[in-house]
Each structure stands twice: as structure tokens, then as C-alpha cells.
């Protein structure tokens, strides 16, 4: 049991695939048949955009694909290079500056990936040099090359996405396939890139309607939380618990890990988990994870900061409308969704809602998308906020009818359409390092001592910490490789996730 608890503690802190030590990757990442098909599409020839919300598992899929190709799997006929674009200067650059920075960054990442192989890779300063280098690598190795770009799209950035997709298109050839992870709301592809002709869009979304949904979450629960067993549960079994939690968080991997962590943290060794404990856990997730997410996302939004408050108001409308009938989904007239496009995008990004149908006929006339809503925030708004056996079964069987919000209703009448700011900068870069204090939002966060040491070293903002070199940070008292990694991962979460 002690071993199980230790193992649970170690792996529960791994919230992002990029942070996972390579030797533990296979042990804690589980993939459904649907996921495996996506991985094979990432290995196959042809450009692909991998679309999914925050924490949906895009990075895990990209990394898993790269691990099936050379150099990680040397007998493969394909070279797979995973390249994270988490590089702040790229967020701020446009046009030719973006191209130069991008090519230098990607070239260096490829050099690192090929370090223990017979292949050299030249320095690159423009797309032509980068493409030539990749083509020569392909000829020399007699293998196709797949580039897997992670974090290409940032929710607060739109200007440089056009430049990225230009490069994506230019690099693609018979021998080079580009794949990139994007968010569902990414719509700015630039003038040269046609999303339907220049790439296939593959959706990562997981929903209970999908075959294999409950098996996937059950597998993850078993592999990452051996402390959770049927003996720890009353009223239902472990398989149903996994399926219910997966449904609750709309199939979002990161949300599921948070939900499991919360259950484990709040269950004493002599206690069991029943409807009451599960309901309390859902309410804590709503209060400590989902609502704070909107605050966490806000400083990353650049010119779209005003959309966050509107998103919060819309979330209130959605959950209050679903609560009377405990409905798990809501159809909203398309005019409303188009009018408040960015707030809806933010709500999808943060896991409050997930689009399940693009165009459903409304009983009151017209059409609109149907969204599934996360059940933590829904339980908060249901009278009494208690999870009963009846509600548990109802949500698990998805038997509730969707509620509808029509254009002519007054639900949105008091909500102004947000206007983007003129030239809004990413506020997160100017926030003090104290923002990164260890908390629910930042489980990898910094201690008071480390914050004080950073301030003493003249590193006062998140932007300063991101720009500081490894050498500078290592000079700080008590900072070795472990803390260097901690600094890098918490900054990455603050800026990128």
C-alpha cells in the first residue's frame, strides 16, 4: 500500500506530457483505440492539424507518435521530430522576424534530437535553409521526415499564426510532413493557408458517446492511481467512477487527473468514496480548479482580456439554465454563439463546455451548436448541490434532454459583446514572480524562499524569469538542475498552458 501511495503521489504531479520524464512516459500514458488511430495519422505522410482544448492530451499524442519513429525507434522508416514552440520571443514576433526566430529555434531543436545519430543538421535562418536541411536529411537517411509542432497556437496570439501556417505549408513536401497542435478556436490561418486543402484536421475530443471512452479512463485510473480500488468505493464500482469522472470533466485528460488527485487527497485511508464524497469533490473542483482557470487564462489573452468577464457571465447563464432539469447539454442559437465567439472559445478552452454537435435544430426555431457542460460547475448550481444516486445514474446514462437558449430570449440581453483591446500585450509576462507561488492553479509553483531568491537576483517578473539563461539561474543560491526544471515548467504553465 505504501508503494501504491508513493507511486500515486509521484505520478499525480505529472499534469502535462511535456513535463513527463521519457522513461516514465509509456507507464503513465494510456491511449484508446481512437487515440492510437490518431497517433498513426501523425506518423503517416500528409499535413495534419491536431485540434483539442487545453489539457485534452494533444502533447501526449504528438510525443507518443515521435516515440514510434526514428531516432527513438531506430528501425522505423520515418524520422519523427517533436518540436515544442514554447519560446516567448516567437509570441511577440511577426513577419520576417518570426520566420528567422522560428527557423533558428526549430533548427536547434532538430540538432538536439539528432545528437546521437549519424546525421548532422545545419543551422537555419530562413525557411529555404530549413527545408533544404530537412530534404537532405530525408535523402541521406532514405526516410520520410515528420515534424510535430507543439504549442504552435497560443490563445492570446493571432498575428503570428499566419506566419506559422505559411511556414507549415512551405515546408510540407513529398518527403516532409508537418503536424501541429491547435485549439478549437484557431481560425486565423493567414492568407495563403486553406485549412481544408492544406491539412487534415484531426479532433482529439473525447466524449461518452464514443466507443472505448469508459475503458480509457478506467485504464488511466488503474495505472496512475493504484490506491483507488473497488474496496475504496461504495454505491458504485471503480469502472463506473472512472466513467463518471471522465464524463464530468468532458473527457479532458488534465481535468480527469485533477479530479482523481482531489479524490485521493481528500480520502483518509480508512474512508470509502460514496456519492457524498464524490459530490464534495466535484464542488471543490468547480471552486478551486474551474473558476480560477478563467483568472489564470486572463493575463495570457493579450487583446482578448475583456472577453474573460463576458465568458464568466455566459458560463453563469449556461449553468443556471441547465440546473433546473440537471441537463448535461445545452443548444444555443447560432447567432448568439457567433456574436460571442471569443468568450465561447475561452469557455471551451478552459473546459467549461465542449461542442458535441455543430448544428442542431432548436424546438423554438432556428439551429445552433449543442454543447456538453462540465458537471462540477453544474452541480454547484443545482438546488442543494448534492450528488444523489439518481443524479449519478442519470448523468452516466446521458438521459437528460438538452435545454435551449434562443436568440429571442433575454438571457444574453445584459451581456455586452466584448471589444478587443488595441495592440494588447501579453499581461502574463509583466506579472510579478509572486504570481507563480505554489497554489491550486500552479501545483509546480514556487516556495516563498525561491521567490525571495529570484527577487534578490533581480528577476522580478515572469517575463524576466523566462528570459533568464540557465547559467544565470544556476548562480542563485540553492538552484541546481531540479529547481531549474521547476522554474522552467512553472513559467511554461503560466505562459503556455
Amino acid at each position: 500500500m505504501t508503494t501504491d501511495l508513493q507511486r500515486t503521489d509521484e505520478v499525480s504531479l505529472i499534469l502535462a506530457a511535456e513535463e513527463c520524464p521519457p522513461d516514465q512516459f509509456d507507464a503513465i500514458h494510456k491511449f484508446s483505440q481512437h487515440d492510437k488511430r490518431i497517433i498513426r495519422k501523425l506518423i503517416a505522410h500528409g499535413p495534419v492539424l491536431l485540434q483539442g482544448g487545453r489539457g485534452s492530451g494533444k502533447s501526449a499524442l504528438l510525443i507518443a507518435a515521435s516515440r514510434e519513429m526514428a531516432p527513438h525507434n531506430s528501425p522505423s522508416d520515418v524520422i519523427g521530430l517533436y518540436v515544442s514552440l514554447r519560446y516567448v520571443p516567437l509570441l511577440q514576433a511577426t513577419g520576417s522576424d518570426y520566420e528567422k526566430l522560428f527557423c533558428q529555434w526549430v533548427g536547434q531543436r532538430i540538432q538536439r534530437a539528432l545528437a546521437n545519430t549519424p546525421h548532422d543538421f545545419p543551422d537555419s535562418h530562413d525557411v529555404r535553409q530549413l527545408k533544404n536541411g530537412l530534404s537532405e536529411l530525408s535523402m541521406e537517411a532514405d526516410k520520410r521526415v515528420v515534424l510535430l509542432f507543439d504549442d504552435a497556437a497560443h490563445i492570446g496570439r493571432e498575428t503570428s499564426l499566419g506566419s506559422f501556417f505559411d511556414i507549415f505549408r512551405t515546408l510540407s513536401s513529398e518527403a516532409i510532413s508537418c503536424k501541429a497542435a491547435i485549439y478549437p478556436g484557431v481560425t486565423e490561418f493567414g492568407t495563403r493557408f486553406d485549412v481544408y486543402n492544406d491539412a487534415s484536421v484531426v479532433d482529439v475530443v473525447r466524449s461518452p458517446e464514443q466507443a472505448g471512452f469508459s475503458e480509457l479512463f478506467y485504464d488511466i485510473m488503474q495505472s496512475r492511481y493504484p490506491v483507488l480500488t473497488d474496496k475504496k468505493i461504495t454505491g458504485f464500482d471503480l469502472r463506473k467512477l472512472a466513467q463518471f469522472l471522465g464524463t464530468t470533466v468532458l473527457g479532458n485528460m488534465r481535468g480527469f487527473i485533477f479530479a482523481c488527485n482531489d479524490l485521493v487527497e481528500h480520502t483518509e485511508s480508512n474512508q470509502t468514496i460514496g456519492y457524498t464524497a464524490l459530490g464534495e469533490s466535484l464542488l471543490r473542483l468547480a471552486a478551486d480548479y474551474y473558476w480560477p482557470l478563467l483568472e489564470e487564462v486572463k493575463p495570457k489573452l493579450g487583446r482578448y482580456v475583456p472577453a474573460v468577464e463576458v465568458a464568466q457571465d455566459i458560463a453563469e447563464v449556461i449553468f443556471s439554465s441547465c440546473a433546473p432539469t440537471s441537463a448535461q447539454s445545452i443548444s444555443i442559437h447560432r447567432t448568439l454563439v457567433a456574436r460571442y465567439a471569443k468568450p465561447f472559445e475561452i469557455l471551451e478552452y478552459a473546459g467549461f463546455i465542449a461542442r458535441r454537435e455543430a448544428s442542431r435544430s432548436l424546438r423554438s426555431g432556428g439551429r445552433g451548436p449543442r454543447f456538453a457542460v462540465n458537471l462540477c460547475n453544474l452541480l454547484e448550481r443545482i438546488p442543494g448541490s448534492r450528488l444523489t444516486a439518481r443524479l449519478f445514474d442519470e448523468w452516466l446514462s446521458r438521459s437528460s434532454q438538452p435545454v435551449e437558449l434562443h436568440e429571442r430570449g433575454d438571457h444574453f440581453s445584459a451581456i455586452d459583446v466584448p471589444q478587443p483591446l488595441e495592440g494588447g500585450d501579453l499581461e502574463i509576462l509583466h506579472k510579478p514572480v509572486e504570481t507563480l507561488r505554489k497554489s491550486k492553479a500552479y501545483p509546480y509553483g514556487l516556495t516563498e524562499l525561491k521567490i525571495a531568491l529570484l527577487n534578490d537576483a533581480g528577476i522580478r517578473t515572469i517575463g524576466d524569469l523566462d528570459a533568464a539563461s540557465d547559467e544565470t539561474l544556476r548562480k542563485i543560491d540553492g538552484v541546481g538542475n531540479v529547481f531549474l526544471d521547476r522554474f522552467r515548467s512553472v513559467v511554461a504553465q503560466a505562459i503556455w498552458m
Partner: protein
Amino acid sequence: MSNLSELVCGNVKGSGNLARSLRHFAQTLTLLERHLRRGVPKRRPLERLVCPFLVRGIIEVACTSLIGRRDPFRILTLAEIQSQGHDLSSGRVAAAIQWTGDVLAGARVRNLWDSTKNAGDMTRALLGDYQDHIFWQPAFLRLSDHLASSGGTLTYGDWTRRLLNTDPQGLVPQLRGIASETYSAASKGVHHEFVLSMAAYYDDATLEKLTEDALWLVATMAVVANFDESIAFALTPSRSMKCYEELQR
């Protein structure tokens, strides 16, 4: 007849030229699909060569069938030409179905309903802008309504979920994109355009993607087409969805 053949060629009845052609297409499609779906854990060199032919064949036969059901004039005139007793083996039939023109149109049409346009200027391509507007979008909405009326507790395959989450205006652009990419990728194998080893271009993952994309494309076009009120030999909505779901297993 396989589920794919039934979905693509419809509930064929009668003995006219269109019915005869569709029965022939259904048989061909069944053979091609059976060969393509054979479980091959690791493809041998010959199978790498053959797979692109099968993929291209399935797309061509399915598109021709749907063109025939949607716009029988093209198939019926071809059937008449072939029945004239000419030796057609050595030359191209000028009226034959063309990928560009009959399946994909040329440039996008800016003003579809310009009253000064004559009929000859309106592309009748299966995935052209006119068919998108008058045929695909209404049929797609009927399909969505049929699924919505079936209740929310059902479990659907990945293709159906993907279809439900597609904007009506985005369906045809998506079909065009996959059709273009898959047909072009398969054609490169047919014409032997590659200069690196075959294994590098047609590795197992790429052939699997080509196969899945081709089957998704033709099955998705066909299931939506069966919800068009004016198409020949339409399956019932429930039969169409059953065939489509079976294909995803």
C-alpha cells in the same frame, strides 16, 4: 453486397441502364473494399504497390455511382456511347467521367445565383459549389435532425461523431480537401512518381491513413447523399445510418 456498396449505390431496383450500371459499380466496389480491408499487419512490397490502386479505384467508382444517382444524365449518355459498338479500347471517350470537372470543380463560384449566368456556366461537379448549396447542405441538415430525434443516449462511431460536429457549410470543403489529398497521394503510387524507396513513402501508417481516409470519404458522401430527397434509389434514414455505423466497426 457490402455495407459500403449498399450505401454508395443505394437500394437499386428495376432493369434500366442506370440500375444496371449501379449494380455493376456495387459489385466492383465490394471486390475493391474486400481486398483493401484484408488485415495485413505488416505490408509486403507488392501490397505497398497495390494499395494505392485500390484506394484510387474505390474513390473513382464511388464518385461515379453518386454522380449517376444524383445526375443520371452523365451515366446514361456514357452507357449509350458504350452500347454503340465502337472500339473504345484504344482511345479516350471524350464524355467519360473526369476527376476535375465531374467530381471537383475548377475555381470557386463567387455569385452562384446571378440571373445572367446560363446553365452551361453552372458547374455540376459532385463537390462543386452548386451541388454544395442545393444538395449537400440540405441533405446534411436532414441527417443531423434524424440523429437528434433518435435520442442522446446512443453510442456512435468516430465517423458519426465527427460528422455531427461538422458545420453544414464546412462539410463540402472538408470532403473536397480529403478527396483531393487522398486521390492525389494514391495517384502518385499509380504513376510511380516517387524517387525515394517505396517503403519511405508508402509505409504502413501512410497506407493505413490512405485506406481510412478513402473509406471515410466515400462512406460519408454516401450516407449524406441518402438523405437527399431527390437522389435515385435512396436508402431509408435508419438503414443508411446502420450501414454507416457498421462500416466504422
